[in-house]
């Protein structure tokens, strides 16, 4: 049985019909417009030495600035870090310290020594574990 002349004409057109909508999208697509770039303002990065002096041996100390974290093992007392500091000269860091069980209330002296800026320090007092937020400020006006 042979198909009718109409059917035999329409069958080859089926793939073309299937492509019609995608072709329409391609031909009539809107001119590509570049979205305006969002300017990401990055704070200048500075180098600093962070040193710890502990009254009692600690298990671990973590210093966190934003999403960056520096972990001091029990035998470490100095780390070189790179941190962002914007024009305000304000820096917030979190200090978390843990001491072995049975350690009496203890002090941890944290010294922050950024290149070409004055040293800032803070003493964290804690019993077994403490997290403290510390704010430092430098006057960056030339």
């Amino acid at each position, binding site marked *: 049985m042979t198909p009718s002349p109409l059917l035999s004409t329409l069958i080859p057109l089926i793939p073309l019909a299937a492509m019609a909508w995608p072709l329409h999208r391609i031909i009539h697509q809107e001119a590509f417009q570049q979205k305006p770039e969002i300017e990401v303002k990055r704070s200048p990065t500075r*180098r600093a*030495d962070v040193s710890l002096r502990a009254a009692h041996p600690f298990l671990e100390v973590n210093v966190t600035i934003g999403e960056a974290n520096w972990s001091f093992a029990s035998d470490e*007392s*100095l780390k*070189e870090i790179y941190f962002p500091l914007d024009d305000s000269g304000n820096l917030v860091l979190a200090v978390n310290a843990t001491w072995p069980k049975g350690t009496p209330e203890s002090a941890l002296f944290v010294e922050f*020594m950024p*290149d*070409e*800026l*004055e*040293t800032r320090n803070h003493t964290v007092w804690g019993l077994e574990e403490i997290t403290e937020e510390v704010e430092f400020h430098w006057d960056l006006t030339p």
Partner: protein
Amino acid sequence: MKALLFALLTLTAHGLDVASLHPLITDIVNQVGGNRISIVPVGKPGMDVHQFQPKPSDVRDMAKARIIFASGKGLEPYLGDLKDSLQAHQIIVEVGRTVPSQKVSSDDQIYSCCPNHALGGIDPHWWHNVRYMERAVRVIEKALAEADPAGKATYAANSKAAVARLLQLDRWVKGQVATIPKAKRHLVSSHAAFGYFCKAYGFKATFVQGLSAEGEVSAAQLAESIKTLRAERIPVVFPEVNANPKVLGQIAKQSGTAIANPLIADGSVASYQNMMMANVKNIVTGLRK
């Protein structure tokens, strides 16, 4: 490849070759480097640190040095020229580079110096704050470890020991200063070399000859100094080792102030600790009277 080969040869022969342009820096580099380094002390005790210029023979002596340690903060104005004459394997490390610069301010000083050290200039005498020397130790440790990675642990241990000594020295200085009544903590010296010391240890500073140790003061500047000393009833002035004592003597005579034992301002000595201790002892003796 050539530089690497050179580095290996210099390391295996007699340790890492370095040079130093300032005697105090030589002392500290020796403390951190220990027996892993061989140092050429171009700047020797007794040198005039403000006038020193390396001679061609000094440049030749430094030819093998991988690192040339300088004090920085503008103390060595010839560093630019020296850099031009270095070979590919050599670097200059300014050990005072991480120290916060202190500018010459108009609040507490009398200016009668050379144009190079005018108001607003950076005071290069950063070593008079013991805690700043601690920063220098870390700069030296890092530079040595980068040039000689195999010695990293040694440099770290030596650096830790040097910092511990400096912390002890800093505590000693503070303890000595505490014996001087607060109202008497006013340091009058020849040239403006003690700004960092005064800020760190709580002294008011008056420098009758500005920053330079040369001692050339005009009559107007001399009169201004005498007027200030009289007005502030300064009991004692401190001359400096290696500085012309004539002007200060004249100022002291005309203002009726006593002359104390001299201070070591420019660090032109072999031992940093001895210099700090000698200065502090002289200051305490002079001001406690």
